[in-house]
């Protein structure tokens, strides 16, 4: 690996989010993260009534749970199945919700293959490393790793 290697490319929606964050000054980046936190969709009933179906993410400093679904021909097998993401995080944990919101907007609706190709360092590219402790940023990486693991298992990739 040469040091000048370009960073691995991001899917379009995620790339746009990263660009938006980096176009802002630091306080505004936090405001944007807050907007993602507020924009995180509610869980559909089939999950809100069955929270045990969601996987906890202990890497995060606040309780968060997530689950993925694969849609497509053949019941969602295969790497071209479409990935749907569902998150549950309390309102008192806006930073964690914000990370979930970014991943939702950036990844929901991609194919399994596209999700699996997302580089693991996305959280480092948001320009938040000064405002947010490394520990919290690592939580976002934990969410992504769990999403990818679920997608890998469910798609048979």
């Amino acid at each position, binding site marked *: 690996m040469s040091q000048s290697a370009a960073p691995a490319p991001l899917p379009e929606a995620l790339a746009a989010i990263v660009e938006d964050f980096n176009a802002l000054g630091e306080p505004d980046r*936090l*405001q944007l*993260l*807050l907007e993602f*936190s507020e924009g995180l969709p509610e869980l559909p009933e089939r999950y809100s009534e069955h929270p045990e179906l969601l996987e906890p993410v*202990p*890497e*995060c*400093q*606040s*309780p968060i749970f997530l689950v993925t679904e694969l849609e497509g021909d053949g019941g969602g097998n295969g790497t071209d199945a479409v990935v749907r993401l569902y998150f549950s995080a309390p*309102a*008192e*944990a*806006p*930073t*964690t919700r*914000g990370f979930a919101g970014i991943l939702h907007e950036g990844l929901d609706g991609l194919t399994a293959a596209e999700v699996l190709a997302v580089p693991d360092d996305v959280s480092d590219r948001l320009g938040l490393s*000064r*405002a*947010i*402790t490394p*520990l*919290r940023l*690592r*939580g976002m990486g*934990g969410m992504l790793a769990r999403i990818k693991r679920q997608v890998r298992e469910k798609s048979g990739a």
Partner: protein
Amino acid sequence: MPLPYDDAEKFTAYAHPERLVSTDWLAEHLGDPGLVVVESDEDVLLYDTGHIPGAVKIDWHTDLNDPVTRDYVDGEGFAALMAAKGISRDTTVVIYGDKNNWWAAYALWVFALFGHPDVRLLDGGRALWVSEGRDFTKDVPNPQPVDYPVVEREDSVVRAFKEDVLGFLGGQLVDVRSLPEYTGERTHMPDYPDEGSLRGGHIPGAQSVPWARAANEDGTFKSRTELEEIYRHEKGLSPQEPVIAYCRIGERSSHTWFVLSHLLGFPNVRNYDGSWTEWGNAVRVPIVRGEQPGEVPSEVPAR
């Protein structure tokens, strides 16, 4: 001029009732000249989702820590922060936050390093204010910058360093982490990520008193009698002797420092902010595993 103290009956039993205010008191005094309310949370965005009207935010990570060295801001940094938040040396500061005032107590402890004269905690913190259905706003105040003198940080009174702790072995050490962290079963809080300690366990001789035992379900502090029962009778801590409290990075132990010094009136309590993320990584310091405080070594290797 400091604001009047809260004469709520619960507080009168504490050693320093002037260090606490109730939600009723704060609601009555919001907007009074000479008062600045500060929110300090674990979650850097929580303030922005809504806060007590007029409150300013102080973030432990970006505002109180030095960005490079593992240390707190210096006198100039603190003065600049205070000035920007509209706090002058004679301002009455009331701090509140999430999680039983965990981070609020940490902020208050840093204020103590600079000897800010009148700084108080809101008993029950953010959660109580929320559960009582009191006013919240998203409006961020724009305080008029004021002058705050550059006061050198005083690290010798309420702060302890690793060398101090090594010289203190055999004294009253309080480990305020969870039991699995104390025994060495794990190096971080349950449900929290690992912050990287190479060894698990506790400092020899340290008593285990998880910090949140000092709080009620609603986030308020337990009564003086209940606190005496835990710290003095159950653990046998004596106010006649000095105490050093520690946790993982010094935040949870700030809460216990507050309890011991301000609520129970122990005159000599220090917070070892290096805590387990320093001790559990330091070379050749003694460590005990298991549920007992353990033997204090008679000799500590040269350092």
